[in-house]
């Protein structure tokens, strides 16, 4: 490029020529700078280098008539009066101008009057569910690696995975380590699952681990190997472990770590957590489809849409009143019959939905990327309320 500028400058005698050629060069340079600007962190240009800038995709969770969700401005927001058309803020943490948690990707976890939230900055917080006061943070000083999955609490112990490749077990009351972190080979972006004293967690080293909840020691002789990274939270249903992988395969394992069946008809990665309903396991894929598989045999019962595809389905669907509700990257929320896969309704929110759907009684809660939480009635998809969680 500089050679060209040198050459053109030597033709400086011809003003008309110079004007034309230098204008073209300037246009090219400006286009280059704009495109390059798309490579800067946070860039959102259509021709930009990356995808959407980081913002988080926390799903909502409902407990005791209160909805908790990690906002895209780095706060945990508690909403009350969620069964009336006028939901309002109960509290938010951190309050006011006291900084923020950073992005929140994992869904908060509620247990016994405490709500737990994991932040991308590498900290886990335990907050009083009633007033949002901080009870403890782990680690108290410093951070662990970026946390993308959510925390899970079982038998008084909180489990969470981190991008430093470790699975942490922390006392849910005091915030102190229960046992030394269990190290996997790569980042952990999945949410753990706990069943019968065993913690199941997938890692970017393409393995699924089974770890004793008691002492952090592996339960299986060797972890289960897949062909791609695992970001999907496992589901335990009827003594079978279900999870998806970036190798575009959905796995069903016996609890001893042996393979039961696989489903590999998807066109792209499995990222979200599966959900079980009436003998069927339902999972969304980044190929723009939701699949319903027989939990015992892995036979496909239906997939939606039948012919085309919608946008990538990242978050896990929810089932309410026999209807499967899921959000898609194309900005639309779909509701399909859980038995047949026939469309019941769809709502265009005009903003990508990457967060998991939360099902309540006759209502589903959706956190869209426009920072709004929507409460939609399950029957027809009508809006009960919507609430902006941004600053």
């Amino acid at each position, binding site marked *: *490029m*500089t*050679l*060209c*500028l*040198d*050459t*053109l*400058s*030597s*033709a*400086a*005698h*011809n*003003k008309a*020529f110079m004007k034309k*050629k230098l204008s*073209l*060069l300037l246009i*090219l340079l400006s*286009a*280059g700078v704009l*495109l*390059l600007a*798309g*490579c*800067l962190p946070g860039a959102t240009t*259509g*021709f*930009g*280098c*990356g*995808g*959407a*800038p*980081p*913002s988080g*995709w926390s799903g909502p969770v409902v407990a005791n008539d209160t909805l908790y969700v990690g906002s895209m401005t780095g706060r945990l927001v508690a909403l009350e009066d969620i069964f009336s058309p006028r939901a309002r803020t109960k509290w938010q943490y951190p309050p006011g101008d006291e900084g923020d948690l950073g992005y929140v*990707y994992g869904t908060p976890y509620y247990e016994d009057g405490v709500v737990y939230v994991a932040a991308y900055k590498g900290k886990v917080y335990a907050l009083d569910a009633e007033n949002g006061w901080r009870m403890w943070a782990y680690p108290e000083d410093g951070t662990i690696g970026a946390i*993308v999955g959510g925390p899970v609490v079982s038998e008084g112990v909180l489990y969470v995975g981190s991008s430093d490749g470790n699975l942490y077990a922390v006392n849910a009351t005091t915030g102190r380590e229960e046992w030394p972190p269990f190290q996997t080979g790569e*980042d952990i*972006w999945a949410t753990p699952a706990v069943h019968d004293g065993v913690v199941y967690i997938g890692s*970017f080293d*393409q393995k699924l681990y089974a770890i004793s909840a008691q002492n952090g020691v592996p339960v299986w002789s060797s972890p289960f190997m897949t*062909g*791609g*990274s695992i970001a999907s939270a496992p589901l335990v249903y009827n003594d079978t472990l279900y999870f998806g992988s*970036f*190798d*575009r395969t959905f796995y069903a394992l016996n609890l001893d770590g042996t393979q039961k069946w696989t489903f590999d008809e998807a*066109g*792209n*990665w499995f*990222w979200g957590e599966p959900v079980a309903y009436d003998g069927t396991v339902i999972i969304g894929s*980044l190929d723009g489809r939701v699949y319903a598989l027989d939990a015992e045999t892995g036979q496909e019962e239906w997939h939606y849409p039948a012919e085309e595809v919608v946008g*990538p389905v*990242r978050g896990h669907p929810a089932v309410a009143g026999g209807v499967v509700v899921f959000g898609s*990257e194309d900005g639309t929320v779909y509701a399909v019959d859980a038995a047949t896969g026939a469309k019941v309704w769809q709502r265009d929110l005009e903003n990508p939905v*990457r967060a998991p759907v939360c099902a309540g009684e006759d209502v589903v809660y959706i956190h869209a990327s426009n920072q709004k939480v929507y409460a939609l009635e399950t029957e027809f998809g009508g809006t009960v309320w919507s609430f902006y969680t941004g600053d």
Partner: protein
Amino acid sequence: MFKLSRKNLIILAIIIAVIVVLAVVGPVEAWNYVLLEPLLNFLVLLSSAFLGSFGVAIIVTTIIVRLLTFPLTLRQMRSTKAMSSLAPKMQEIQKKYGKDQEKLRKEMAALYRESGVSPAGCMLPMLIQFPVWIALYQSIVRALASSPEELLSLSQHLYSLPLIHQTVPLEAQFLWLNLGSPDRFFILAILCGASMWVLQKMSTVPSADPRQESTSRMMLWMMPLMFGMFTLVVPSGLGLFWVISNVIGIVMQYFIGGWGTLGTLFNKAPATAPAPAPEPEKQLETPEGAAQEEALAAERVKQQKRLEHGKSRDKRKDRRGSRRDRSRKARRRS
């Protein structure tokens, strides 16, 4: 007037094809299908071949792209060199016809025609290379996918090859660098700026024209500083690409044109503008010498005739032009 030569027909066909593709598919999708996704998937496959090392994949890809675009780079370098060798003649013409812009333009055009050089000879190679470089920048940053949103986006651009899906996400660590973040030690920014300066110094041809010399001096410092500053803020995978690209450019430039004006730094001899071509020596009066003299004289006559033909064609154009102006004025008056 547009001539239907083979070259023009090919160019027209390419332009039409590009317009059709853009109209049918859309510019963003066309960009993704034609440039971004092939480069992106190639980078991921290379990483897999080099045991997951994305840094090595960037280096190898840069070398391959530079080698493939070498003919275009060579054309650019030759164009620059040829333009610089014309500088003394251009100065002469400027002195002679400086006040008459029209005459100056014609004489310059004739000079370019005779010498077969085009001042815009570097534009086409650059127009072709530019989108490739931009696509490569984007591929490097997309492939790294340092945030969950970026990884989600990456999933939509990967081909359906198991090896590709097994390799992602890529390992961002390379030497002291996290390829997905700017280099916090600034080493890459210094390397980028320094290597660009060396390349500029080697490839700049000194000129007798003070305006051109001043532009070259400005470029010598401005571009390295600019790219050095970019390297401070963009992901270091891009910075690595720029450094490797500059180093390859230095090697190419060395084999084509030697150390150039960089050599003067070590020899401490002032860089001089290219001297005007020397007068052909008078041959001794031998039969071979006489034949050579005749051939040279015939060549000079041919060149003179071409020049005169060009001048008389320009005169005829002027006469036609002024006749048209007169009849237009007459129509307006009536």
